[in-house]
């Protein structure tokens, strides 16, 4: 076999091995997640940490996204004399898509890389082995708690981001037209259905799980010392973002099917 063929088959082999390892990792998560002990305190600590880490960035980004989107949408609506639709347009855009997606992308960068680096560092410095030999299940204590924390916290952050986005939008609309906060929110929510809120919440849960499990997987399997830690953090971000976009497409498609069913 020539070298090119060998490299190709080795690459294919590695891809299948990688998928199989990732599948086993996710399966182990579900196996361990519903078994005692639940480490609720650690889940709370991790949720708090994740929330605190991402909150400032989400506050700024959410608000700016609301302002900028409203500003960019206004000229197009003005052409048709439909600026009064701005609140409902922004309501749909932020609740259906932007809130969850922006939060997920920020958390993939901020939280996912942090988890990847932290677990990677613990792995290469034998802290994970130290837990094992102390009769503590490191997968349960480190992985299950972090994935649970991201799955719980990211939907909450997404709601917060959506609220701030709408607030930013209101500030922009209010600067141009005389509209009260209550009227703005009433208009914004007039076009939003239960399905929109449900799908947005469902998306955030899926994104939260993805960010947690990818970060943990990369960190837990880190090798090659400090270089491996950097790689784990980097891969955690890249793969999380890639998966989030795929999930976004799939969930939007499913929601649309349900909507028009």
């Amino acid at each position, binding site marked *: 076999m020539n070298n090119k063929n060998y490299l190709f088959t080795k690459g294919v082999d590695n891809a299948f091995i990688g998928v199989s390892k990732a599948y086993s990792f996710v399966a182990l998560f579900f196996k361990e997640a519903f078994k005692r002990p639940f480490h609720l305190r650690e889940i709370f600590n991790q949720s708090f940490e994740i929330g605190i880490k991402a909150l400032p960035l989400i506050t700024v980004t959410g608000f700016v996204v609301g302002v900028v989107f409203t500003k960019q949408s206004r000229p197009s609506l003005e052409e048709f004399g439909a600026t009064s639709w701005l609140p409902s347009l922004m309501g749909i855009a932020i609740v259906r898509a932007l809130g969850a997606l922006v939060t997920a992308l920020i958390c993939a960068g901020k939280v996912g890389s942090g988890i990847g680096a932290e677990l990677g560092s613990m792995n290469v410095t034998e802290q994970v082995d*130290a837990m094992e030999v102390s009769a503590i299940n490191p997968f349960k204590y480190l992985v299950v708690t972090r994935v649970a924390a991201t799955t719980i916290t990211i939907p909450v952050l997404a709601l917060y981001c959506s609220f701030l986005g709408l607030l930013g939008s209101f500030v922009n609309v209010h600067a141009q037209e005389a509209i009260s906060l209550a009227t703005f929110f009433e208009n914004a929510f007039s076009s939003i259905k239960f399905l929109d809120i449900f799908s947005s919440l469902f998306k955030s849960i899926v994104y939260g799980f993805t960010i947690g499990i990818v970060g943990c997987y990369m960190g837990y399997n880190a090798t090659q010392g400090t270089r491996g830690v950097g790689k784990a953090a980097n891969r955690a971000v890249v793969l999380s973002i890639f998966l989030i976009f795929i999930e976004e497409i799939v969930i939007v498609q499913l929601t649309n099917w349900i909507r028009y069913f």
Partner: protein
Amino acid sequence: MGNTEMHITNKDESVISINGLYKSFGDEHVLNGIDFTLLKGENFAILGKSGSGKSVLIKIIVGLLKPDAGEVIVLGKQVDKLNRTELDNLRMRVGFSFQSSALYDSMNVYQNLAFPLTMNFRDLSKKEVGSAVEEVLESVGLTEKLYQMPSDLSGGQRKRVGIARMLILKPEIMLFDEPTAGLDPITSGEIIELINAVKKQNNASSLIITHDLTCAKNTGDRIAMLFEGRFLKAGTFEEVFDIDNEHIKGFYNYNFIQ
């Protein structure tokens, strides 16, 4: 070498018994048929240069690695046949001190020591945990470092905390992986004294993996020399280094015996 030197005939007294142990990583054969017995109350030192398979051997004993072939019996249990719960029960009776100390760097000394205790004995009160932590810290002579972070400790102090963390579960067997690696001779001497003292206090058996002749000589009741995945010779220090083997002689000549 003959297995008779490695195995002690009184099986009832053995706490670790290893027979025909093999382990490879890809094409690299790390352990090529290891046999030995660790007796109750005994200190057994395994000497060997870096890459000779010492750390792999000790990791197989606590079930961190699986053997390719052979039998590893620890406190009457065959390690590679145990399920997770059985393995955890066994690990609570076997302490492990890492070469790098492997302290949890996000926890202070108190939390590092309390962690194995609180995770394994959930009904313990804060007071009970606190007094257990103070007791083990006192036994390693570090009571004043209770709330310091691992990053603020010296190499020797980290080793001591690592040993204290191992002691907190009151193990019947203590496994030391390169306890004096990276330490100056004075600190090494202190760690050697500590190993002997904690062994006496806990009435435990110890397996010491080291490349340091001074450490092996001063801690081991018996010593074995590991070379290319096999034991070259075992016995007392004098017996091991009294034979005409170029690897053993070479190892001896590169070390300074105190």
